[in-house]
């Protein structure tokens, strides 16, 4: 299983982390996207505060950065659950049943795209081609790819994630307060 995003840092720690991320990546061409990816990986989501910090550090307009963040479905401005499920709706996955997978997941998890389950375990997102069209339909749970998924097998697919979470000490589960979810 992949690591849990650290959502517990306070604002000063977050600022330092963002400074380090920007410093290490800012000199490469097209630095914005890698910086946003690294920031989201570390902080779990891209808050207004984080984006404004990145805007200042890169000397790039906030509206331009938000344009990139809102363009790519990968980026989120809301806190996510422990596992983000991304259902690919690229052309190949779409025609081979991606849409049905998404509908079934909405039913199982009782959430819409962009939302997080009440127990903060799963978030549901849509992807636009993971470059694995031969394996369609594909979905990702955090960094793990699941291929040729059938709607009827989804419950079984999610079971290990649920049980692993149950077996772990509760204080390691992600803490997402209402404050973060502005």
């Amino acid at each position: 299983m992949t690591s849990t995003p650290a959502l517990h840092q306070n604002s000063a720690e977050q600022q330092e982390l963002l400074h380090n991320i920007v410093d290490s990546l800012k000199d490469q061409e097209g630095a914005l996207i890698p910086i946003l990816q690294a920031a989201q990986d570390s902080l779990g989501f891209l808050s207004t505060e984080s984006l404004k910090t990145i805007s200042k550090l890169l000397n790039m307009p906030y509206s331009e950065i938000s344009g990139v963040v809102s363009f790519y479905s990968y980026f989120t401005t809301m806190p996510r659950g422990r596992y983000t499920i991304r259902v690919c709706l690229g052309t190949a996955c779409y025609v081979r049943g991606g849409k049905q997978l998404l509908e079934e997941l909405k039913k199982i998890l009782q959430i819409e795209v962009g939302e997080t389950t009440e127990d903060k375990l799963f978030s549901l997102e849509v992807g636009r081609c993971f470059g694995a069209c031969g394996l369609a339909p594909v979905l990702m749970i955090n960094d793990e790819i699941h291929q040729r998924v059938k709607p009827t097998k989804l419950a079984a697919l999610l079971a290990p994630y649920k049980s692993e979470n149950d077996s772990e000490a509760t204080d390691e589960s992600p803490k997402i307060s209402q404050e973060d979810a502005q």
Partner: protein
Amino acid sequence: MFEITINDKKLNGDDSMTILDAAEMSGIKIPTLCFLKGFTPLGACRVCVVEVEGANTLTAACSTPLRADMVIKTHSPRVQRARQSVLELLLSEHEGDCKFCSRSDDCELQALALELGLEAPRFEGEKNHLKTDSSTAALVRDPEKCIKCRRCVAVCSQRQGVGALFPQYRGFATTIGPAFHSDLDSVTCVQCGQCVAVCPVEAISEKSHIADVLRALEDPEKHVIVQTAPAIRAALGECFGYPPGVLVTGKMTAALRRIGFNKVFDTNFSADLTIMEEGSELLQRLRTVLEEGKSAALPQFSSCSPGWINFTEHFFPEYIPNLSTCKSPQQMFGALAKTYYAQKSGIDPDKIVVVSVMPCTAKKFEAARDEMCDSGFRDVDYVLTTRELGKLIRLQGIDFTSLPDEEMDVPMGLSSGAADIFANSGGVMEAAIRTVYELTTGKELPTENLHITPLAGLDGIKEASLRIEGTKSPWNFLEGVELKVAVAHGLGNAAALLEDIKAGKRNYHFVEIMTCPGGCIGGGGQPRFTTDEVREKRIAAIYSEDEGKPLRKSHENPAITEIYAEFLGEPLGEKSHHLLHTQYTRKE
């Protein structure tokens, strides 16, 4: 060089040219929408598609370079059908009722529908329902009308270096605006209105004050006076079919009187006053450094352009001490109207309503700033753009073209030619030097026709230097000093100049910055469509207005001498300090 064929006509071209350039050279008009001269073409709207022999699909003329032996058809039936479809699809998403749209007179989308012969809507498109954004003092965004051409994005980020507007989200949900779905006041926007000047539809426009002005004019209790900025007289005619560059000062004055303003005054008057104050301030800073050996913030920056003030506060706060403390001519006028004029005319300042006509949208913001109440009242009540004045004249049934020429009222309608040239990039600097040189040496500025040619024109950054010789007391500390000055217009150029100054690559005593390309004559509130050609014509008109005046220097204006004698005392005196100067602060 190679040969191409465009609509059966042979033409020589090269690969630095686009199909659109070639068509223009051949006298063929290809319709465009997202295209904006001087910017990298986007090819986003597809209205300019043409047929190129051998190509499978139609291609965008604005972004396709010429190739040898290209055979182009710009108006074949296939092209015409495609253009119609593109436009029909754009219209199907465009929310708005043309009958009640302020852009009905100059909407490019509507004009294109007519040009391409669209008759009835074929598609009823899905619409993005988005709220109107009136969060700022100067601008109103109506994203439902936006056709996503991105001209505003190009001017805001590339020309002005502000970057308030960018495409947000993707696909059908794309909006062009501030971050996410936020309001314009939540991001850094200097309210210059260059976006308004290039928007083809009514997706972004100035916040209208026409209704407020009409209400004031209707109120018998109110004494409504009007001031017009120097740039209006060289552009207002365009609202009534005159070609760009025709001066309409006299007709404008007559029209304002017929609208019902109690007095028709001139921002030129306070522009002359600005020169007295700003010139004295420069001399004071120079004295501090050169004579007293102490430090003062140099270069001094001009402070007439409210977009530039906003820009400094947000992007270069370290240069706030360098900004001249002078208020802009609009605000000096307002502060004096409700004090000096009220006193002189015996009218209760509470009953006076000051209306400005400005080439600018940011002036609406400036008039609403917290700082601008030094008269004890809101110094300037309402600000109309040149375009709004055009509408108001029409609304009042005034046949502009048949009006006689009339003179402005005294005393606040008197001005010198130095005030006129405030409208042009380089003009404030030239006006200041005319006065500063003469005050310190007792001699007239020794240049041809009092002009400082290197500071005129449309180059983004201009500089000049002038040796001061033959000084008289108490200005001997300036003897032999090489006065170095620079001028920039367009905030992108301003930022580049500031970075150079910061890095020590350039060094000046005085710098003039105007927010809009060309200066105020290219302001965000001027009649559309302002191209460089139009800018040049308006600039020439302003210079001829200056040259035609008997008085060419601010300090020679008798109304200025009078106001110092009767009311203000001396430049930088206590009363001036209170009414004509201000301080700005850092903004996040």
